């Protein structure tokens, strides 16, 4: 039964969880190497949280198997709980208690005696820059502070495996960068981190391997490089001076880059999705080629930018539908893009 020797922190096979008639997780296979940050990337409702909750022993899978450090998550749930920590999507601390009380409470539940529990709580609050807020009830904390106290609560005992379920959703960029620093510090000490996120750049910044999950299934898995190669190198966004030149510009771009070109709702805007299949050029080289092709064609470009592949683009490339479509089709503020694909 023990798969300890494989060096995997998590190993799942055919994990399924159904709620009512919906298969929230529909046969997920994961192999997470120990000591790394593993990113699980997907839109809302893809089944990320359900997967994490099963692995953290909070939900029982309907079928399939999962082992955490070789321990079966159902039959050996207690062993699993001894080695993992969970930071949920919503603050997993008691909002009515103060920062200090929360950490002391949890330290006591982990078996620390009172004086060491207090010391550990004070040290963590200090390291997380929360000393000033230590005596305040968590319900008065800002979003960034909540995430910090939440992560602090997860590392009272340094866990072997830390689940971070969308740790930066709803945070401002500065708080987000600080959470990233914390994650890097945690993994540098040997803890394995399973990170779920909706943001490709977050997975890009932190994870060494990424699984893309959609509608309960893993639709792509690999290193960052492999995944990006499968998706394309990014996009060139252009704004022309003359809307009348747009059809010609689209045509030139398509020929110069062998790429899909989209016209945007804005009559002067164009986006070309780069592919790595167009030779071994970097995205910048391809962009340069595109610009010179347009210049030769006599087209005036007002504005130009080179974008990383977005999660939307990853999804479009991998599934043929965008992230808004599956279960949260509420966002209609952006017009669907007209495909001008070749």
């Amino acid at each position, binding site marked *: 039964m023990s798969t300890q020797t494989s060096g995997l922190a998590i190993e799942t096979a055919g994990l399924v969880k159904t709620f009512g008639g919906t298969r929230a997780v529909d046969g997920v296979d994961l192999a997470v190497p120990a000591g790394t940050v593993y990113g699980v990337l997907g839109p809302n409702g893809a089944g990320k949280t359900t997967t994490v909750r099963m692995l953290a022993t909070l939900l029982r899978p309907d079928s399939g198997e999962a082992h955490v450090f070789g321990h079966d998550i159902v039959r050996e749930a207690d062993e699993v709980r001894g080695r993992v920590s969970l930071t949920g999507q919503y603050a997993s601390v008691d909002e009515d208690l103060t920062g200090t009380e929360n950490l002391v409470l*949890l330290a006591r539940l982990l078996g620390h005696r009172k004086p060491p529990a207090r010391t550990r709580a004070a040290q*963590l609050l200090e390291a997380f820059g929360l000393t000033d*807020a230590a005596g305040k009830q968590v319900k008065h904390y800002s979003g960034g502070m909540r995430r910090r106290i939440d992560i602090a609560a997860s590392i009272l005992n340094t866990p072997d495996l830390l689940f971070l379920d969308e740790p930066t959703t709803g945070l401002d960029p500065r708080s987000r960068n600080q959470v990233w620093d914390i994650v890097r510090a945690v993994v540098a000490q040997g803890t394995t981190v399973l990170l779920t996120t909706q943001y490709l750049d977050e997975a890009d910044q932190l994870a060494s391997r990424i699984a893309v999950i959609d509608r309960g299934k893993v639709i792509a898995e690999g290193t960052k490089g492999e995944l990006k190669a499968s998706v394309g190198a990014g996009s060139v966004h252009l704004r022309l001076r003359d809307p009348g030149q747009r059809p010609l510009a689209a045509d030139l771009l398509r020929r110069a880059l062998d790429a899909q070109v989209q016209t945007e709702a804005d009559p002067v805007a164009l986006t070309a999705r780069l592919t790595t299949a167009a030779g071994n050029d970097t995205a910048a080289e391809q962009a340069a080629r595109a610009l010179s092709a347009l210049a030769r064609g006599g087209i005036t470009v007002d504005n130009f930018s080179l974008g990383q592949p977005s999660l939307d683009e990853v999804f479009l490339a991998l599934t043929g539908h965008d992230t808004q479509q599956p279960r949260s089709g509420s966002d209609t503020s952006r017009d669907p893009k007209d495909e001008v694909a070749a």
Partner: protein
Amino acid sequence: MSTTTTTESGELAPVRTDSLAELLVAEERPPRPSAWSASLTFGWRAILKIKHVPEQLFDVTAFPIMMVLMYTYLFGGALAGSPKEYIQFLLPGILVMSVVMITMYTGVSVNTDIEKGVFDRFRSLPIWRPSTMVGYLLGDALRYTIASVVMLTVGMILGYRADGGVAGVLVGIALLVLFSFAFSWIWTMFGLMLRTEKSVMGVSMMVIFPLTFLSNVFVDPRTMPGWLQAFVNNSPVTHLASAVRGLMAGDWPADEIAWTLGWSGLFVAVFGPITMRLYNRK
């Protein structure tokens, strides 16, 4: 993310990753806490919540005072000739009735608390599983003790005299608190089973009113019709009220105490496992 945000993240001190790294160097983990120690820690959590929101003690102070005053003066003249004479009979009973009624709030607080993210953390800890629920009930035991002391004080002001002395009163209250702890497992079950706070409240009322009123708290059951006597004489609340009444009067009603302990054991044995099953499945 939240409407109660009052502190801007702009003024947040930076994260100190160097000291964080030091803290993360894995030390040997302490041994897991015992079942009792984990339960006590959750009891401490309940007490901290009372400290932060003292208004929640309203139901163990104002409500019991109201109960004593209301029933003493409402029924006293008619049932015993005068309120002063009636309270000698009523006080232990109304004490039992009020505290058993107050146990009902356990279900509501479990129901609202369980939806919060912190329960995910509790449930992913390697601790004795029932300790979360036992902790609630330990915190509640403190509330029941407060209610008992408040009612006894009001009763003594109105003329109640406990012939059993301090010892009789203490054992009586201890028995009441113990029974309430055991009885509360019904509420933890409903708190986990029902979906909304309101439905928990509704079901609780349906259970608690017949159970407390159909007892010997207000009057001697011999005045009741036979079919009702059959229910009342076998109700756990009647056994408890008789036991507490006897203890406070200086007797040792061994039968009634045994019945009360038996019922307490039964409540824990039946509703404890159901509660834990629901808790694990939530």
